[in-house]
Every structure is written in C-alpha cells, then in structure tokens.
C-alpha cells in the first residue's frame, strides 16, 4: 500500500466512503495519512488526549476498555471519531492483534473533513446509530 491511487482503490469499497466519486476518494487519500502498526502496538490509548480518527485498511485490532476486550475491528471499520467529536480522551485502548494498516486524520482536521464531505458524515452517523441501537438492545436484555 502506498500511493494515493492505491489508497483510493482500497477505500472505494468501504461503506463509509461508498458515496464518493473517484476525485473525492483521491481527495480523501491525500487528506488522510497511512500508518502501520505492528502486532501488539497500541493505536489508541485510553484516557490520553490528542488522538485521531482511524479507518482500517488491513489487519485487525481489539477494543479494550479497563482491561476488558469489548470488540474486534477489521478492514473498513473506523475508530477514534467519538473522542474527536466530543473533544475528550478515548474511553478504550485499541490494540493491533495483527499488523495493522490504517488511514488516519488528526483530530483537529476531522470537523473540516466531515463538513466538506457530508455523505461521509451521513454514513458515519448511520454507523453510530447502529452501535447505539446495539447498545440499547444489550442494555434491554440485561
């Protein structure tokens, strides 16, 4: 993985970017940066400020809150947006369980990016709505 074209190809099939035309995908690829994390690397750190918004291109990671595994993330999943949107430190670690390639946008750039790409914002909102519904269902079942 490397060039903007390759990153644009990689994200073209992801739900989050499903509504974007090719030049907009290239714009996303030039605005985000690619990052690589070896197995066991902490990508997001619980209670530490200044994190970013990550979209997984390849690999797998666990979400761990207070030492408890809460979820597993894989290609196309994204994380870090809640912390950035609320301006608060993450409430969980995200730890690579296999070598992990992501694209990353620094926290201060996220608002501008979402405002410039309302279809991405809509898709992100849908994903958040799904997560909220899942949490409500789990809460109701307990």
């Amino acid at each position, binding site marked *: 993985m490397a060039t903007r074209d390759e990153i644009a190809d990689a994200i073209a099939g992801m739900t989050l970017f499903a509504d974007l035309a090719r*030049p*907009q995908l290239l714009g996303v690829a030039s605005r985000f940066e690619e990052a*690589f994390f070896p197995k066991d690397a902490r990508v997001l750190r619980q209670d*530490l400020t200044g994190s970013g918004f990550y979209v997984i291109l390849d690999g797998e990671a666990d979400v761990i809150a207070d030492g408890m595994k809460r979820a597993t993330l894989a290609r196309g999943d994204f994380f870090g947006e809640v912390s950035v949107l609320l301006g608060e430190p993450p409430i969980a670690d995200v730890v690579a369980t296999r070598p992990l390639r992501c694209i990353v946008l*620094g*926290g201060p750039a996220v608002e501008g990016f979402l405002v410039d790409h309302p279809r991405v914002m809509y898709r992100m909102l849908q994903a958040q709505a799904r997560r909220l519904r899942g949490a409500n269902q789990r809460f109701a079942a307990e």
Partner: protein
Amino acid sequence: MTVADPQERPFPPGEYPIIVVGSGPGALQTSYFLSRLGIEHALLSADPGAGGMFRRWPFFQRLLSWTKPYAPAERSSRAFERWDWNSLLALEPELRGIAAEFMDGTSDFPSRPEMEENLVAFAERAGVRARYGCRWQSTRREETADGDRFILTTTDGEYRCRFAIFAVGVAEPYSPSTPGIELAVHYADTRDAETYAGKRLFIIGKQNSGFELASGLLQWASRISLSSPSPAKTSIETHSLVGVRARYVQPFEDSALGGGVDILSASIKGISRAPSGALMVALERSDNAMPMSVEADEVIAATGFTCPLVDLPALGVATFGQSKLPAQTEFWESATVPGIFFAGTITQGSAGLKKHGIPPNSGALHGYRYNARVLVREIGRRHFGIVPERPALDARDVRDHLLSEATLAPELWHQKAFLASVVSFDTDDGVRDEGIVPLTSFLDGGGPDAVAMTIEADGTNIYPVVYVRHGGRQEEHALDADPLHDYQSLAYRRALGTILERLTAGASAA
C-alpha cells in the same frame, strides 16, 4: 568542496558488529555516537563525500531550517540547540553548534553550500570516517550458530554484521502513475531558473517542494499553477512543520491578489500534448468533481521522494505511505525484521502518538539528531551491555529539574509529544534521571513509578505535559501555556509540585 581522499578507504569488506549505510547527517550523527560509546562499526556510502542530500538540494540552494547565531544561549551549550536546527550533536564543546561558523550573515537560513561545509567539517573534526564510493547493492540474511547475520553486498564486496542501520534518506524521486506523466519532469530534474523565463508552468503538488519552485520561479515564469486534491495549509496555520513553510508564502499572496499564480484543489486526470505543442493538464475539481484543464509550457512533478530501500522489502521490511517509509518500532528498528534499524530522515516512519495530528520533526536534522543519540544508547544497552548513565537526583530537586527541562531542553522542543525527559522513583534504586526517552516507550514499557515531561502543541498553543506512572496506572496532566514559554515561575512550581506529591513523598519515605 572537500572530497574524501580516495586513498583513504577505511572499513574493507568483512565482518563488523554494525554496518551503517549513508553519509548524510543522520549517518554521521549515528556513527559519531556509536564511536563515542566504543561500539565498533563500519560506515559505508555510495557518495564521494559527506553531506547526503545537502550535496545537491534544496534546488534553490537555501535551507528551510534556521540557525540563529545570536540566540540567548552559548553556542556550545545544550540550550543553544533549540535555536540551531543545523548542527550535529557532540559531547565535546568545541564540536557543538558549528553551523553558525559557516554562515555569511545574510540569512538565518544557511545556504546549501554552507550546510554542506558544516557537515563536512563536523565529520573531519569529529573523526567520523566513512568508506566513500562504496554502494550498497543487496541484502540477505544468514543463520549462524552465533545468531543471524545480515550480508550486505556492495560495489566493494560483502559485509557481514549483526545489526544494520540504514540512513539512506528519502531521496528517490517519486511520480504518480498519472496518464502522460512522462511529459512532466520531476522536481529533482528542474532546470536552471532562467530557462523558465516567459513559460507557463504547471506544478503537480502543493507541498514545500512545489512552493519552493513556485517562489523561486515567480520572477521567471509567465504564469504558475499548482494543484493537488486537497487544500494547502501553511506552517503558521498548523503551528507546526506540517504545511508550507513561511519562506514560501509569496505564491499564496500572488494567488490571493490575482497576480498570476493559481493554487488549485483538483486531481490530475492526465497530461497530453496539444497540436500547438503546448501541454494540456486535465483536472477534476475536488469541490464539485467538474472537469477543467490548464494549458502549460512545462509541467513539473513536485510529488515527493521515496526511500531507496533497495531489496529490504523483499527481506520482509514492511513499508507504508507514499514515501514507502519502513514501519518502525519506537526505537527505529524495523517493525517486521529485527536487527535492521534506521537513522536520519527515515526515522519519520516512527511517528509516536502524533497527538492532535502533529508529527515529530524526525524528518528534519533538528529532530533526527536526537533520535540517533537515543537509538545508539538503546542499541548499546540492549546488545552491547553498555549501561547508560542514570544520575541520581534528590527528590526535592525533581520539580525544578523537570520545569527546567520543559523550558530549555532542545529535545523536548524539537520532538514535541515524541521525546520525553524522564525521572524514575524506584524504592530500591532511588530517584534517577533517566534522560531522554521516546514517549511511547515510557507509556508502553512499564517499570517503576516515574514521571515524563514533554512539550506539546495542539495547533493553537505550545505547553508542557506531565505523564505520571504511579502504582501501575498512568495519568496525563497538561500544564497551562505561557506566552513566553518560560515554565519556571512560581505558578508552574506549584502546579507540578501538586502533581508530583505522591511520587516524591514515596521517594522521601524510601
């Protein structure tokens, strides 16, 4: 310019504990610290002399990195390094801060020849010897009863080593696979400025190299267009080295005032030659996906460089990003091939926490010179049994020590949120100054109670941050920003004193 005596060719082919490849500032700095720690190594370079990329670039022959000869600190002091981005580090006072010696007083940004002189002088005075004219060609690994060896094939023969450190820069021209890109020339092949007189120039890319060309060619070109898919930002807006440096803002003003410069946000669909002989650059606007085209006489691809890693990827070295940087640990070891390390500008591949989206300055000399010192210390500790100095501190002095570090330590100022000044509180070992440590190593490495001081930036302010490790838990405490960046006042002493109370109380009791 001094060229190494071809008769003096140290380090013949053979086995060495460490091979360092390169002779730019990153390689010189690494070799210097290895020598000072007494670690035997060979330094190999394809070039005829020291200097690396500064033997040729920047194209307009003036650097982006400053050295302020009359800074408020002695040139031989550690504090001066904050104001001097261009000198290599040294233990000997007479070898410190030497960049200013070669500057003619016309600018605080050295010219390229001044920078080259500075590096050559450092190598000569510090006794950093290299085998010049020796090109690394390929790499393989062999298992032996005594552990793995890397074999580096060079134009002079084979070298064997336990550890290899590559400081080969990010210097291989990269051009995207855009249709018609062969009609463009790369930044690296830009001609003399006067040959662009009266030409309509299209520059692909809106990073520093694109704006360097645009600035330098303003008086020559009849029109200049720059394009990339996303908007350009300046370092002033980001409060960091992310973005176009202030040296190159003139094209922004020309664009804003309609003065013959176009700064476009569009992706390049292709380049073709019109029947008239002109080049047609087909674009798609990023804002509305509408097509547009620009006619130009010349197209320059200021699209960056990649790492010349030769066959390291085939050996298993994972790379990422457009520059094909090797993925690295917090101590600049390949994340996928242990024993292979990196130095110099390549160390930007280990970006740390990148808090608030701001990377460390590891791509520049004033950042990676510290990485080299930390790297050598770690290699010495881990593989050569060299125990680093850890001076004892009185618990009562820790607060003032850390505030002094926050105010003056060049490592913290140049490598924000990346390198930290650390003090440990061990019940058996007492209070120790652990020196400069990668912040991620502090956060992930575990160990006794300790405190780490960093300087950080969030795009608006610069401020100190204190990380406390106490009873296995970690806390982060940001201190207030100070408009004069002086953190040694009573208010800071009180704030830090409160944070440190539990640690210092424990140390006193011990």
